[in-house]
């Protein structure tokens, strides 16, 4: 398989992929949807969601730790047999595919609504997927290296954005701090923990990372920093736009960049930020296309999962074009979120159980030969 021949990547490159791929959610429809139920306390949801997801992650890690160097697909095939392995891989693949389709459609919608209104949707979609496919085809290490190259630029741009919008921020707008109330917030946080489902999907890529320790630190750091980043930016959105205006706004990040200017001379700073945004969205989807092909390739035990990237990109595009308009995209997103939350929650426990059975079964035959000898 090409995965083994591919260059292994280091911890910092791995971390920066997640800083980009997960941190990206601060600029898409995720925040808009979270504000609707989170109101002034919307910023707490990413933190809560990650907190919940980390529980599942820790369970999964306990299995992975025992089989260091093996990725999720290898493990599920080992412990679940051919059928179980394929089933779990396909389930993960389906969740990731639908998520990618809906998210990418959200991105294309943003580009369509905010920048290119007269360009047909499918053309924009085709271009985004085309470029993402090109990057994905370079391989995982290429995606990782690009991420590492631009990560400081991206984070710098976000810091710059917050710095120039600072005078419009009024933190008092975050009150009342509990938004719709403590219980609804916790519930929304739990229901949307699939937002960080990548943390489960990411375990498929263990063999690509130089060491298991690098993987563990990289993924944990990437996700925690990203969720703090998303949460902070969401707090900024509320304190600039105020509740209830925030729930009327379709794309807070893009509207925020529209409000910025560098001094009195450069008044249209959004074009600066949109360039960065487009750049990282390409990396984001390149990562997803790679992951989809990788998961599917393992599920059907194909030899070269790279050849699957083109059909994957096509599939994402086809599914992404299904929703009729931007509001339907939102409702599909919500639906998908709640279902895939169950999946991402249940899988680690199922895998842990399978692993437990496997160890029980294999403990005796291993002990026997020793006793005989």
């Amino acid at each position, binding site marked *: 398989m090409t995965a083994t021949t591919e260059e292994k990547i280091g911890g910092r490159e791995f971390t920066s992929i997640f800083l980009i791929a997960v941190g990206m959610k601060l600029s898409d429809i995720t925040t808009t949807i979270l504000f609707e139920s989170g109101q002034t306390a919307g910023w707490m949801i990413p933190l809560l969601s990650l907190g919940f997801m980390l529980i599942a992650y820790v369970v999964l890690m306990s299995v992975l730790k025992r089989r260091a160097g093996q990725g999720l697909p290898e493990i599920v095939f080992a412990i679940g047999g051919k059928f179980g392995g394929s089933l779990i891989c396909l389930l993960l693949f389906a969740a990731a595919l639908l998520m990618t389709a809906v998210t990418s459609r959200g991105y294309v919608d943003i580009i369509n609504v905010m*920048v290119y209104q*007269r360009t*047909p949707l499918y053309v924009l979609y085709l271009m985004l997927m085309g470029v993402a496919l090109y990057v994905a085809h370079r391989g995982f290490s290429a995606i990782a290296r690009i991420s590492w190259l631009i990560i400081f630029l991206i984070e710098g741009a976000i810091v710059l954005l917050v710095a120039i919008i600072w005078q419009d921020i009024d933190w008092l*707008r975050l*009150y*009342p701090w509990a938004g719709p109330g403590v219980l609804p917030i916790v519930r929304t946080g739990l229901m949307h923990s699939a937002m960080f489902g990548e943390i489960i999907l990411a375990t498929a890529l263990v063999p690509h990372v130089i060491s298991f320790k690098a993987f563990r630190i990289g993924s944990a750091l990437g996700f925690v920093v990203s969720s703090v980043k998303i949460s902070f930016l969401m707090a900024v959105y509320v304190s600039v736009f*105020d509740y209830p*205006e925030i729930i009327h706004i379709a794309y807070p990040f893009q509207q925020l960049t529209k409000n910025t200017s560098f001094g009195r001379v450069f*008044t249209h700073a959004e074009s600066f930020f949109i360039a960065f945004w487009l750049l990282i969205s390409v990396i984001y989807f390149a990562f997803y296309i790679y992951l989809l092909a990788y998961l599917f390739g393992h599920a059907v035990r194909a030899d070269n999962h790279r050849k699957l990237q083109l059909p994957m990109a096509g599939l994402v595009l086809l599914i992404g074009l299904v929703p009729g308009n931007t509001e339907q995209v939102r409702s599909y997103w919500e639906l998908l979120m709640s279902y895939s939350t169950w999946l991402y929650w249940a899988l680690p426990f199922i895998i842990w159980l399978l692993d437990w059975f496997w160890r029980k079964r294999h403990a005796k035959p291993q002990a026997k030969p020793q006793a005989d000898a």
Partner: protein
Amino acid sequence: MRNRKRNLKRMLKCASVLPLLLVAGCWDQLELEEQAIAVVIGLDKGPGNTVEVTFQIANPQVGSSDIGTAESEPPSDTIRFTSSDILSAKELANTVVTRTINFAHLKTMIVHEELARDEAFPHIAGAAIRDPEMRREVTMIVSREKAYDFIMKNRPRLETRPHKYYELMQQRWMETGYVPFSTLNQYLQQQVIDSMFLAIYATAEQNNHRVLRHEDGYLAGQVPKRSGDPVQMMGAAVFHNGRMIGTLTGQQMRWAQMLRHKSSVDSFITSFTDPLDEKAMITVRLFKNGVTKIRMNLRKEEPDIHVTLPLRVQLLSFTSLQPYATDAEMQQMLVKHLKEEIRKEVLEVIRLSQKKFAGDPFEWELIARKHFMSMPAYQKFSWAKHFKKAHADVTVDLRIENFGKQRTPYIESNSKGG
């Protein structure tokens, strides 16, 4: 041989990428030459359910080095259309204008007072913001006469280009505090139930002015001036639930800004009566010294609000020519007098908004929100209802910082305290 082939392959790849630079924009490509940049739009009430939209389109050649080819062209052109909303008017404008109307540099929106008071206005403004070209940072000005007349009459002699005029005026608003700094963003934020919004009030018509003792107690149109540009911007239009309900004078506006916990203006020059001389005035520069502290007790049916206004004063001139700078006793008296005067003026603004506008233009709702844990609880409480009944009290924290660059007055006053 293989190397050459690879090189050729690379060159072909490059060659296929380069044309991408030419197709940038796809269906949305814009030719710079084909843009008509609207810098100001005016909104008037049209017949029936329509709006009259006025576009002031800048001529980019004026003020640039390219002026040679367009010597006889004016700096801007103003056209008015009647349409159902702003966006359809934009398209309709192309029946007359040769270039595509572009809102990307739109900075100012002028609204006729009559339209602002109309119940349709929240709908018009709310609908306009859907257009991605329409920026939330657009400044909102309410004009007493028709927006069309306002734009037509506004011909500042020293600023040929209209966008420069508003850009510079905006800086002055920040300095003087005579008008609120009002953007569409703020308007939309405070369009919710029982919320107040202050917009810039302006007029291009001078009406009967009487000279007041306090130079900031005017409303637009009352400022005593002769010649110059007819446009005056002074005071604020008060909006309640997205509709205009009244006005504040420049002085009231300044105090309203100072009462906000985070104000866009932190210093201005104003005058007070002299405690020692009935006829004389004292001109001071006031600085907001830190944040306005607002304490509330919302447990009661009639809540208590206590405001501490920290101020720093620079004494600029006093026509009484009393030796304030050198006499400590006189200074104490002066401080006490200023505190009382300010308190009186501030309380008057608060009372006015409680009685006349029945709403809170000081953004105190943000402070009130702090007292609640959840949004439903806050909404049930209804801040606007309680604000009307609230007992507000103001403490002025005042310190005289300096007395200008003269220590003793030229004429020695005859007696101390005289």
